[in-house]
């Protein structure tokens, strides 16, 4: 057997010299990234995506760091501002296929306004939000997705807020695709991302992820395997669920699936005057 074969099948998508990643052992972000790269790999081999036109943009946070390992045009910009950066890039060069990757804090807290306006515009991009229920990079503060009552470093008496359901939020807008997967279902991440890559308009995928280091620590699941298997237990797949079914509740369960799928004209098409 040729030595050359003993190379990870995704290595060509990676800046392998920068590995290992900075992620903690067992961090779910890597699982998501790996799944996305398999999807992209398929698209590229099929010839339906030109790798030179792929642009990854991320904000600040653990999740955002993922793009730094990618062998593509990549931008690691301001906390919360990946979406407008990508919008500018795509408008200046509509050949670009922009993928925004970010944490739940990055995309839905500080970046929430850009999220809703990009979805409202049905802007030509794929946004993948890693929901790990916490501000991981900064050390375990409450995120908009943190479950009610959970201890975090900024809610020591327990989170007083009910979490934000980002799927429902984005689903209320003009996005062409809204789906949720989990790092416990990497094949679904792959499948959804694969589909999203070929669609037009705004495509949003929430990936529920393990963060044993921060969220895990807070809820007593510091061990990677334990956290993974606890998340796995909670995840329920539904075929084409409605937005009402989009429950994401650490106690009662997390529904994954494809909530919205449509084929409306994208922002750039509208700008060019192409209507339905």
């Amino acid at each position, binding site marked *: *057997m040729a*030595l050359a*074969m*003993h190379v*990870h*099948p*995704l*290595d060509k998508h*990676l800046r392998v010299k920068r*590995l*290992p*990643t900075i*992620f*903690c*052992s*067992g*961090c*779910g*972000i*890597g*699982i998501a*990234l*790996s*799944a996305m790269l*398999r999807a992209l790999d398929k698209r590229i081999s099929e010839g339906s995506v030109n790798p030179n036109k792929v642009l990854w943009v991320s904000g600040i946070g653990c999740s955002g760091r993922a793009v730094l390992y990618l062998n593509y045009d990549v931008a690691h910009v301001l906390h919360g501002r990946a979406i407008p950066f990508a919008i500018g890039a795509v408008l200046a060069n509509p050949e670009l296929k922009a993928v925004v990757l970010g944490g739940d804090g990055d995309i839905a807290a500080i970046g929430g306004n850009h999220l809703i306006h990009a979805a409202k515009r049905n802007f030509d991009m794929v946004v993948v939000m890693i929901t790990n229920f916490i501000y991981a990079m900064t050390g375990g503060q409450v995120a908009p997705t943190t479950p009610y009552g959970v201890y975090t470093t900024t809610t020591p008496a327990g989170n007083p807020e009910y979490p934000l359901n980002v799927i429902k939020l984005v689903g209320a807008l003009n996005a062409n695709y809204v789906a949720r997967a989990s790092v416990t279902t*990497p*094949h679904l991440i*792959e499948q959804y991302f694969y589909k999203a890559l070929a669609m037009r308009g705004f495509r949003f995928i929430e990936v529920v992820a393990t963060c044993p280091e921060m969220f895990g620590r807070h809820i007593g699941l510091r061990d*990677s*395997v334990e956290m*993974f*298997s606890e998340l796995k237990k909670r995840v329920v797949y539904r075929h084409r669920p409605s937005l009402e079914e989009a429950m994401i509740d650490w106690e009662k369960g997390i529904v994954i699936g494809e909530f919205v799928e449509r084929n409306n004209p994208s922002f750039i098409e509208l700008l060019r005057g192409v209507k339905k």
Partner: protein
Amino acid sequence: MFSVGGVVSRSNNKFRVNVIVDRCKECGLCIFICPTKVLVRSGVMNRYGYYPPDPVFIDKCVGCKLCEYVCPDFAIFIEKV
């Protein structure tokens, strides 16, 4: 078992399991997820102080790639032989 360029590999007659030793962070997810319990935490520490998995029970490998898919660190992959 053989090891080339930091990759430890074992194969049965259908599949080869490869572990890129220095990428592994010993999270144990591959071991956990493997439906046929092929993988075992090895006793050899990698450059960063972690103990990567060793596909000790390689005969049982069914090539499902669950280990590859669950690995957050691009540290394990399966090839057909």
